[in-house]
């Protein structure tokens, strides 16, 4: 044993540190000798106060803790460590005299992982310490893998955000705003606006089923197919049919819902196709309410080839608010298990908020956030709002 200021004993820098706490020098010595030379760094403390100081400095991987000690006893040491976020994960094994079942139960209730009975049996001490160090190593490994995975997802999410339009285009007679939020790093939602000849524009909102990387890959695929569409993507039915043909070959057992609309600035006409997606919403000031534009549409992309894609035609008017969205918003839950729903969204879109699409979208997103009361969204959310001047 040693009186070294930072009571490190042993030399392996990489090995786990085990703190032995007992006010009885003989017990401490028995424990020390039992565990010595087994590849652990052993630290020792003779009372609760010292134990707490060492734990805070050294953050050992395991603590063997005597219960009955003068000053701060083992229960109190345990309670304090479990209340401190930096130390609460450190496993604690209580050292208790044989037969004191109550003590053992109390220790386990306080968050200890195990106990060792006195007088110590060398094999038992070694076995229990090895078990908990193994558990510790496995946990650390799982955590490291989880961290690596999350870092990877963050990279995927970053790539995905880069695919979205850097800024929305200036469209004569129309103001635009978009909102995009993934639920857990990467996601499958996608929105885009592509410029077409003769004052026409293509609006796309899509939702690749699933989450994380697979959904993100499908979203990126949809983006690539639309941006790389040969010729002008001005025939919406043909665009969806062509996108679907390729997606059917690559998507496997999944699908992508989408809505694609071609807007013609010369006559304010809108030709809409949709694939397993929600109808767009339209607020018309003269009507004073928001309604769905009923589009027949077809099933989601990536499942089977389309024979024909029904096109819905409508004409926008001055003051119209046109919203394309994914179901992540309407299916946002609150802690009471209620869903945000279409009605609330329609109500928000109908409110008198001037003609700034950004302000209207912000208000919708705020309203959904208030509704969720802090419950995180299960799904990605994409919104694209067009306000006709």
């Amino acid at each position, binding site marked *: 044993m040693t009186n070294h200021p930072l009571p490190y004993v042993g030399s392996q820098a990489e090995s786990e540190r085990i703190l032995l706490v007992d006010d009885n020098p003989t017990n401490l010595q028995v424990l020390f000798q039992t565990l010595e030379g087994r590849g652990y760094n052993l630290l020792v403390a003779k009372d609760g106060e010292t134990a707490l100081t060492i734990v805070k400095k050294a953050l050992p991987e395991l603590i063997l803790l005597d219960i009955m000690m003068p000053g701060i006893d083992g229960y109190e040491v345990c309670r304090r460590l479990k209340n401190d976020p930096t130390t609460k994960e450190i496993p604690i094994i209580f050292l208790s005299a044989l037969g004191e079942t109550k003590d053992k139960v109390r220790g386990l209730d306080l968050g200890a992982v195990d106990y060792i009975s006195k007088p110590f049996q060398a094999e038992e001490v070694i076995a229990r310490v090895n078990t908990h160090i193994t558990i510790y190593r496995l946990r650390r490994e799982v955590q490291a893998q989880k961290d690596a995975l999350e870092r990877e997802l963050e990279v995927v999410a970053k790539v995905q955000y880069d695919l979205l339009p850097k800024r929305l285009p200036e469209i004569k007679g129309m103001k635009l705003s978009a909102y995009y939020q993934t639920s857990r790093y990467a996601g499958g939602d996608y929105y885009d606006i592509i410029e077409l000849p003769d004052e026409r524009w293509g609006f796309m909102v899509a939702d690749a*089923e699933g989450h994380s990387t697979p959904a993100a890959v499908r979203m990126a695929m949809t983006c690539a197919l639309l941006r790389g569409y040969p010729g002008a993507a001005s025939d919406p039915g043909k665009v969806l049919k062509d996108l679907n043909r390729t997606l059917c070959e690559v998507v496997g*057992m999944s*699908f992508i*819902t989408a809505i694609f609309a071609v807007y013609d600035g010369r006559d304010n006409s809108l030709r809409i196709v949709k694939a*397993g997606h929600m109808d767009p919403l339209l607020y018309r000031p003269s009507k004073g309410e928001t309604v769905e534009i009923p589009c027949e549409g*077809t099933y*989601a992309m990536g499942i089977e080839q389309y024979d024909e894609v029904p096109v819905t035609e409508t004409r926008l008017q001055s003051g119209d608010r046109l919203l394309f969205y994914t179901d992540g918003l309407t299916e946002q839950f609150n802690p009471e298990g209620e869903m945000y729903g279409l009605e609330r969204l329609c109500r928000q879109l109908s409110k008198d908020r001037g003609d700034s699409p950004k302000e209207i979208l912000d208000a919708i997103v705020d309203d959904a956030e208030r509704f969720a009361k802090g419950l995180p969204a*299960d799904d990605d959310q994409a919104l694209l709002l067009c306000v006709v001047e």
Partner: protein
Amino acid sequence: MEVIEKKQDGICILTLSGRLDANSSEEFREKILQIIEDGAKKVILDCENLNYISSAGLRVVLEATKEIKRHEGKIMLCALQDYIKEVFEVAKFDAFLPIGGSVEGALKEF
């Protein structure tokens, strides 16, 4: 989500209750694909007590529908709550499988 399986006149009836979402879809997927692999050709999904279905749930229903078709079988979705029915209608899944009849009707139709 809870799934109760029962057999009636050689038809497999799966009664679903709760939420078929990303959390429960994988377990349900394994179960229904196993039932199909074991030779079930007529499957009814009784959705009377199914409260929510997410796109992950839709995917599993779609996969099972494709799989049973390969075995020349058929799945029928029955007794859907309005909201769930709407989800299937928006997704246009009626192109792939019958949706919305009663369990009794489906039993007769098989």
